[in-house]
């Protein structure tokens, strides 16, 4: 145990933690997205899915797990970033990047934006603080009317717009994050480089489109309160 703590306190160990937690969050994002897609099947489907989740015996386990993974991802990144800043106390007066990608360069920034969006997102749809008026609705089966909440919420152009923007930034975060996941876990071989790169693009594009489709279709009126 002490050995594990020692090894996971090194820079490579930290990176592994960030990668593994990032990977777990990625899996969550996929699951969350697929669940959210039930919105397109109408109020019954989404509300049923939400009720099933709420009633699941392991829900709190997953919630705490998710929070722990998220906190670890952020805290270890903070520790790494601090160490990395310390490693270059004097900056160059002129420095031209040769290969560094836009996504890798703004990883911390995109992460911070995603984090503040997440806070907003939770306050909005999980705790009902932002628009309390849509949070209290119930559907015909006395279930929490998540469908109505989502559809009404995304009718607001500011909310829909910021949601789409944040998802795009999340996408940037994921492009570098998902590719790094492979590198950090040691999966990098010239035969598969192309496969990994395009696989990541495909995955991230899927996630971004999946998430964005909800506010966009709602805002455009394709998905309405009446369902369908």
């Amino acid at each position, binding site marked *: 145990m002490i050995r594990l703590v020692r090894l996971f306190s090194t*820079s490579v160990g930290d990176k592994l933690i960030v990668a593994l937690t990032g990977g777990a969050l990625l899996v969550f994002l996929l699951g969350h997205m697929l669940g959210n897609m039930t919105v397109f099947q109408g109020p019954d489907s989404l509300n049923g899915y939400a009720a099933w989740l709420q009633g699941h015996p392991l829900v709190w386990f997953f919630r705490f797990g998710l929070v722990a993974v998220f906190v670890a991802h952020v805290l270890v990144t903070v520790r790494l970033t601090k160490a990395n800043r310390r490693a270059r106390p004097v900056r160059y007066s*002129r420095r031209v990047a040769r290969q*560094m990608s836009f996504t890798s360069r703004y990883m911390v920034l995109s992460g911070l934006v995603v984090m503040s969006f997440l806070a907003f997102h939770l306050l909005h749809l999980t705790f009902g603080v932002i628009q309390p008026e849509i949070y209290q609705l119930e559907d015909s089966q006395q279930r929490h009317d998540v469908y109505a909440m989502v559809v009404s919420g995304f009718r607001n152009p500011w909310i829909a717009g910021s949601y789409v923007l944040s998802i795009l930034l999340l996408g940037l975060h994921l492009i570098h994050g998902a590719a790094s996941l492979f590198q950090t*876990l040691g999966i990098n071989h010239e035969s598969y480089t192309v496969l990994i790169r395009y696989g990541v693009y495909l995955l991230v594009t899927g996630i971004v489109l999946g998430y964005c489709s909800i506010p966009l279709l709602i805002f455009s009126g394709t998905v309405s309160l009446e369902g369908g």
Partner: protein
Amino acid sequence: MKFTLCVWRQLNSDEPGSMVSYEVDGVSEDMSFLEVLDLLNENLVVRGEEPIAFDHDCREGICGMCALVINGVPHGPEPVTTACQLHMRKFTDGQTITVEPWRAAAFPVIRDLVVDRRSLDRVIQAGGFVSVNTGSAPDANALPISKDAADRAFEAAACIGCGACVAACPNASASLFVAAKVAQFAALPQGQPERLQRAIHLVEAMDREGFGGCTNHYECEAVCPKGIPVSFIAHLNRDFLKAALMSREVRDVPPAVEAEE
């Protein structure tokens, strides 16, 4: 040709430094970049000023001594080329060229463009070798090694220890340097007995020396004068993970002791 050189001048590690501009005239396109510094220095000396200190030795791209960030890129604009092999025909007449030292906490500036890179040596001292005493080796052909493995080991061993990877990394990480050493021995049967311990010890030493960690920007690969690929860093991560999960004990390395002056 004529150039304006904007050079970092710093008297010693305690004094603050600054960029100073110099005009150099009479440069021919056949001159190497370091020969332009020589020329400038000769002019400075004749004027009674102290020459610009910069590290250089073999001037054929193999000793790894030269260490200049030229126009914002470690070793300058030519890919897979050390600063000493960079020739002036790659620049345009009249250009302003900035010259800075490697910048990293683990590479304190000694004077002007010269930095102290002993931190890299200390990383190697922590385990970047095969422990074999003189005289105890079996016949060289006793262990066949596939050509593929030998070539891969060579590719990693081509590292000249210049530190450009550190200079280029936004985190001043020495991951590529460490990874190349770990991967070289991991590819060879002779490196197997100490393989996992080596990965741990080198990474710990790298952290101890104040290098940053890798966040996969891959700037190191882009400036490496020997073209060492970042796939070796993946290899290092793999070995480290394996070591973290599977090694039964982690030997302690005594902290490096600096020899007295």
